[in-house]
């Protein structure tokens, strides 16, 4: 007998022996080949048990040992050590057979269990003889410890690690450490204040030189193995540098308010903030998201959220400055902008979009730009010509001048402003507003040349000769399109809308006739109609081919026109102009109906045969569109045009086919909005500057095109946001207003404007008004900060990521979110906390405003087990609620007075900790009423909350009216626990919390060596238990660091060089890149430091060259043989 096997079957007290006839198994095994000794024993894992093995090895010269007992995951190490002590190589000698977890505990019949145990033992006997000597490799250990989560568990662990003289990295997701404990007020059962015992810990952590604190950071990736982890930490941009002194001046300047998450949204904070006054580090932090949709949508990129916030804060001058960073015509755009920003405003998810355009007008009306100081301009020598003084030209001129260029504006008309001047009637845009804004641009030192028509009075070469280094063409689209109907050219009285409006705007205000018909549905048509009315035209009609829904003019303009008496013929198309004696007599029309959509997506009007009719009139004003007016024969050939007869430009640089000529506005885009013209002018100004600076325009365009698309990671809107109606501009009476060119709408009053601005939900987070930057004396604010990735090396990791309180909103019967005075436990903690919304007073909420607190409640119901011990939510007991509920009861009695009634609705009281039962007695003696029964619902009636339950002890239904209800919500795993578990290579249990390696013996270890757990991330627990576990986890980490080395499993892959044929398939299958090809030998080789022993290679390798040590084919085959040797 070459092998001498010792077999030992354990009774495990009665755990195995009650089902498996252990003696019978031992006797059976004794007869198997190679077995030298076979025994059963009460507790093999005990010292005497192990001694038996050691003694037998020596006395019987055993070469192999098999223990049949519990799972190898439990005691494999124990018995391996015993074999080693007796001089055997443990990997060669020892095999463990599980007859407890896999046999006695899961099998009901004694016979079957015994049979199964024999079978498994036999498989083990066959297997063990094929085991080989293995030696674990030893690696040095990095003595640093990473602690993830800066709550009480993380802080404690970090301090303990540091105290032992090792370095700790503490990574916290929030801007401050402290965790949930620091949100609490008092702690049970001793009632010491959480801040009093918590803040000193925070300070120690902050000051301890061996702790490197990484707040506002998250672990993104962990690689390596025990003793040698490499960790990437994302350090989120705080936008405030470390030299922040925490003075809080920035916070005072910030106009943006948010609900403060630290206070569970019971009060607000600013976009630049620290969660609470004692935060560690004290460094402030700015809450940024992707730019708000309004900002992203504005063609000119105006910081909409910013100026709205500044208006709310009453900072009108700052608001105007912010607007004018992107556009020089705030008062104009505050009146005529189509406000695409309002269409995407997320306030509409609550009720209705913010009145952004009206707020812009309000800001512009509050401050006369001419009274603002002139900007400081560094003059440059280069001359630039701007042709056309419309919004595009003015904007280009404005921003080029700010860069220091010498600007001359050439204008064909006698007045500046382009379409703003001659297209938009005065009642919409008062000339004094336009004048003021043009003047503001011109006063920076811009020259003008009036009545100079491009292409007629001068050409490009003239300008070049005069030394202009670049030319901006913003000549607009001033030529009306023809109707193309019969009679259009034949009769006097047909005048196009552009001509008509130009005349009116330039002061010719006599009526064009007695009855005017305007054709078209855009703003120009409505402007012409309302202008015609104001000149004294008796009757004005509009003819439009489609229905009102399709009409492109602004709805308020259409409403205004109708109110003033303009008649609109919808679904009507012109077919001919009738005349008499050379003059217009009427417009012949035909009714239409809407057919299928055309290319533009709008439904195409189809004439209805036989529906012709005539509108009598003496003036016909077509307003069906415009195009640019190119009358420069000399340069027609050299400036490229588009198919639509507009100037062709590169959309990123606005450069035309001539390098020194740039374009923008209607001449480029065709008739479009003022804000688009402004955006084009601004874009061209930037490009012209780069052009003059000698930059390659092609790469400039490429860079602009490659700009990352804007994200949509916006702040979530709180469901509890109260609805508030949108403010509307006051109208003048229609009859009165139709009689003059005075402005129809007046602006907001100050209160109205501020209240409207306050409706903004700040979905972009920080609005980037940058007032904080100016307010900061230390110059610590840095809006351009970027996230950084820091790589750190550690030997051990303690995961202490904590828990989340359950959101009780879905449990509809308790009315959270519906009834104002139903609170969650955490809300109550903040209420009771001195840094909370009420500075520690327990007050009821104002039913009209969740952020306002009124008076102390006279009666309070505390509902236990909300979401705990409940199959619909969490089946487990959250372990802390009973005790904090008692604490609340005490605090209410203490703070609101002893006559305040307090009811606790509980299923079972669980007061199992040290001093807990005593605390229960104390609270009971304070007169708190305990109702044994789970509340089934909370209803609101006459301002009171009615709690319904059964008092199961008196067998009676109770309905108790109270003023406040507190829901003791469950502790639950963080929503991202699964992803976090993956990062650290650990797993979550069915309750969602992280799984410890063993529920009793390894409560802080995980199946991944070197990764430990602490605190409530492992399961609900109170502060004492959390601290104890943190200390345990620290001890594990320290044990590793102190020993300085770690041995890793030798059960890894090996490739037999004599068999390997070098196909390299295993290399592609290895998840760790642990196999490399050796071209000299033509074989694949395993890097033993990297291999983890998963066997992906061995599972493939057809020749069996790749094998996992200790799990070789031969070993597995023998095991199969043993099992099936019936």
């Amino acid at each position, binding site marked *: 007998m070459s092998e001498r096997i010792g077999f030992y079957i354990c009774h495990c007290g009665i755990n195995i022996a009650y089902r498996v006839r252990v003696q019978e198994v031992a006797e059976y095994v004794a007869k198997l080949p190679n077995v030298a000794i076979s025994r059963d024993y009460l507790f093999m894992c005990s010292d005497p048990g192990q001694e038996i093995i050691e003694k037998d090895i020596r006395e019987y010269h055993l070469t192999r040992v098999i223990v049949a007992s519990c799972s190898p995951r439990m005691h494999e190490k124990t018995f391996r050590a015993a074999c080693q002590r007796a001089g055997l190589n443990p990997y060669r000698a020892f095999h463990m057979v*599980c007859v407890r977890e896999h046999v006695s505990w*899961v099998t*009901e019949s004694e016979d*079957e269990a015994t049979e199964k145990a024999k079978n498994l033992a036999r498989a083990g006997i066959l297997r063990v003889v094929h085991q080989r000597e293995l030696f674990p490799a030893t690696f040095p250990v990095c003595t640093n410890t990473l602690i993830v989560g800066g709550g009480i568990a993380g802080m404690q662990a970090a301090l303990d690690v540091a105290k032992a003289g090792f370095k700790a990295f503490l990574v916290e997701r929030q801007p401050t450490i402290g965790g949930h404990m620091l949100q609490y007020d008092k702690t049970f059962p001793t009632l010491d204040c959480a801040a009093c015992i918590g803040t000193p810990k925070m300070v120690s952590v902050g000051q301890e030189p061996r702790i490197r604190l990484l707040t506002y950071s998250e672990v993104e990736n962990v690689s390596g193995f025990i003793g040698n982890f490499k960790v990437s930490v994302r350090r989120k941009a705080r936008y405030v540098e470390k030299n922040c002194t925490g003075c809080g001046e920035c916070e005072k300047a910030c106009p943006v308010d948010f609900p403060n998450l630290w206070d569970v949204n019971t009060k607000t904070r600013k976009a630049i903030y620290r969660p609470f006054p004692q935060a560690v580090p004290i460094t402030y932090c700015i809450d940024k998201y992707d730019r708000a949709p309004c900002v992203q949508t504005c063609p000119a990129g105006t910081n909409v959220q910013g100026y709205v916030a500044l208006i709310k804060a009453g900072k009108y001058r700052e608001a105007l400055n912010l607007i004018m960073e992107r556009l020089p015509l705030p008062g104009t755009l505050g009146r005529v902008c189509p406000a695409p920003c309002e269409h995407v405003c997320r306030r509409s998810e609550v009720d209705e979009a913010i009145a952004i355009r009206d707020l812009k007008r309000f800001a512009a009306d509050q401050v006369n730009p001419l009274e603002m100081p002139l900007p400081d301009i560094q003059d440059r020598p280069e001359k630039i010509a701007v042709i056309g003084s419309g919004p595009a030209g003015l904007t280009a001129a404005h921003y080029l001048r700010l860069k220091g260029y010498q600007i001359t504006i050439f204008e064909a008309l006698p007045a500046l402003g382009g379409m703003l001047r001659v297209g938009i009637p005065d009642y919409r845009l008062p000339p004094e507003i336009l004048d003021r804004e043009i003047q503001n641009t011109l006063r920076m030192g811009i020259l003008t040349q009036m009545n100079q028509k491009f292409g007629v009075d001068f050409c490009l070469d003239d300008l070049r000769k005069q030394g202009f280094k670049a030319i901006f063409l913003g000549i607009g689209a001033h030529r009306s399109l023809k109707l193309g109907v019969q009679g259009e050219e034949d009769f006097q009285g047909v005048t196009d809308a552009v001509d008509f409006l130009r005349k009116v705007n330039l002061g010719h205000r006599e009526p064009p006739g007695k009855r005017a018909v305007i054709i078209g549905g855009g703003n120009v048509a409505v402007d012409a109609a309302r202008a015609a009315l104001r000149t004294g035209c008796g009757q004005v009609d509009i003819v439009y081919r489609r229905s009102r829904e399709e009409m492109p003019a602004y709805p308020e303009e259409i409403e205004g026109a109708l109110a003033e008496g303009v008649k609109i013929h919808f679904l009507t198309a012109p077919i001919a102009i009738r005349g008499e004696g050379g003059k217009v007599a009427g417009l012949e029309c035909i009714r239409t109906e809407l057919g299928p959509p055309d290319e533009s997506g709008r439904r195409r009007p189809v004439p209805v045969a036989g529906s012709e009719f005539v509108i009598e009139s003496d003036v016909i004003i077509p307003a069906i569109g415009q195009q640019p007016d190119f009358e420069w024969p000399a340069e027609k050939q050299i400036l490229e045009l588009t198919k639509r007869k507009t100037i062709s430009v590169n959309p990123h640089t606005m450069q035309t086919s001539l390098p020194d000529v740039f374009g923008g506005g209607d001449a480029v885009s065709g008739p479009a909005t003022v804000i688009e013209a402004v955006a084009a002018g601004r874009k061209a100004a930037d490009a012209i500057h780069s052009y003059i600076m000698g930059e390659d325009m092609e790469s400039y365009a490429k860079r602009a095109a490659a700009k990352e698309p804007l994200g949509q990671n916006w702040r979530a809107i709180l469901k509890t946001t109260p609805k508030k109606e949108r403010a509307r501009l006051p109208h003048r009476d229609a009859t009165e207003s139709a009689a003059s060119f005075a402005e129809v709408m007046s602006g907001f009053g100050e209160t109205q404007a501020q209240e409207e601005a306050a409706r903004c939900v700040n979905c972009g987070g920080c609005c980037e008004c940058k007032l904080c930057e100016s307010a900061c004396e230390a110059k610590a604010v840095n809006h351009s900060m970027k996230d950084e990735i820091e790589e750190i090396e550690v030997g051990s990791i303690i995961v202490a990521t904590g828990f989340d309180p359950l959101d009780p909103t879905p449990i509809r019967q308790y009315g959270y979110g519906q009834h104002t005075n139903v609170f969650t436990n955490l809300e109550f903690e903040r209420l009771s906390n001195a840094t909370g919304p009420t500075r520690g007073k327990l007050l009821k909420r104002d039913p009209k405003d969740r952020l306002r607190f009124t008076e102390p409640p006279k009666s309070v119901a505390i509902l236990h087990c909300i979401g705990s011990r409940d199959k619909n939510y969490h089946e487990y007991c959250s372990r802390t609620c009973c005790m904090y509920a008692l604490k609340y009861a005490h605090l209410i009695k203490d703070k609101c007075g002893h006559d305040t009634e307090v009811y606790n609705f509980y299923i079972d009281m669980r007061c199992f900790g040290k001093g807990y039962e005593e605390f229960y007695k104390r609270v009971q003696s304070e007169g708190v009423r305990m109702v044994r029964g789970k509340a089934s619902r909370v209803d609101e009636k006459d301002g009171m909350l009615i709690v319904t339950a059964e008092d199961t002890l008196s067998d009676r239904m109770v309905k108790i009216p109270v003023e406040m209800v507190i829901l003791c919500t469950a502790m639950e795993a963080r929503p991202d626990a699964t992803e976090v578990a993956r990062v650290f290579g650990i797993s979550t249990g069915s309750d969602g919390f992280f799984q410890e390696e063993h529920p009793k013996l390894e409560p802080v270890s995980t199946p991944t060596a070197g990764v430990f757990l602490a605190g409530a991330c492992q399961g609900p627990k109170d502060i004492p238990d959390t601290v104890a576990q943190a200390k345990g986890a620290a001890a594990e980490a320290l044990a590793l660091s102190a020993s300085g080395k770690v041995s890793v499993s030798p059960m890894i892959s090996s490739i037999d060089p004599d068999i390997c044929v070098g196909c390299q398939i295993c290399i592609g299958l290895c*998840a760790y890149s642990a196999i490399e090809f050796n071209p000299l030998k033509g074989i694949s080789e395993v890097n033993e430091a990297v291999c983890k022993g*998963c066997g992906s290679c061995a*599972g493939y390798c057809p020749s069996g060259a790749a094998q996992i040590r200790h799990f070789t084919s031969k070993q597995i*085959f023998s095991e199969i043989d043993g*099992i099936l040797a019936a």
Partner: protein
Amino acid sequence: MSEFEPTIVAFFCNWCTFTAADLAGTSRLSYPHNIRIIRVMCTGMVDPQYVIKAFLEGADGVLVSGCNPGDCHYINGNYKARRRIKLLKEILPQFGFENERLRLTWIGASDGVRLAEILRTFVTQIKALGPSQTKLKMAI
């Protein structure tokens, strides 16, 4: 005649299903005794040869069980196992081994209850199929 008692060879990965089997034991969940667990570190190391060997030696069923998608302790061993089982499920039925005799499942470490359920179901299914051909006769 006594009821047919199948023998089922089960290859369980150390980190998920083997742990679940331990948990089933700790939780005292009972399941049929016919299951014989062979511990492997990962289902990715289960060579198709192991399955063939087990069937030829007389196993009535073979169960390979590893971690749930994304939970594999070795990142993706379970996906590799899936391809290999797929391959076997194409080969073995050609020779009269019913497809239902070979199963691959993914059972997480905390799924003790599910493990017991799956084992019960599997044993019931195998009992319904009757003994494997190799159980009764010599395979050459």
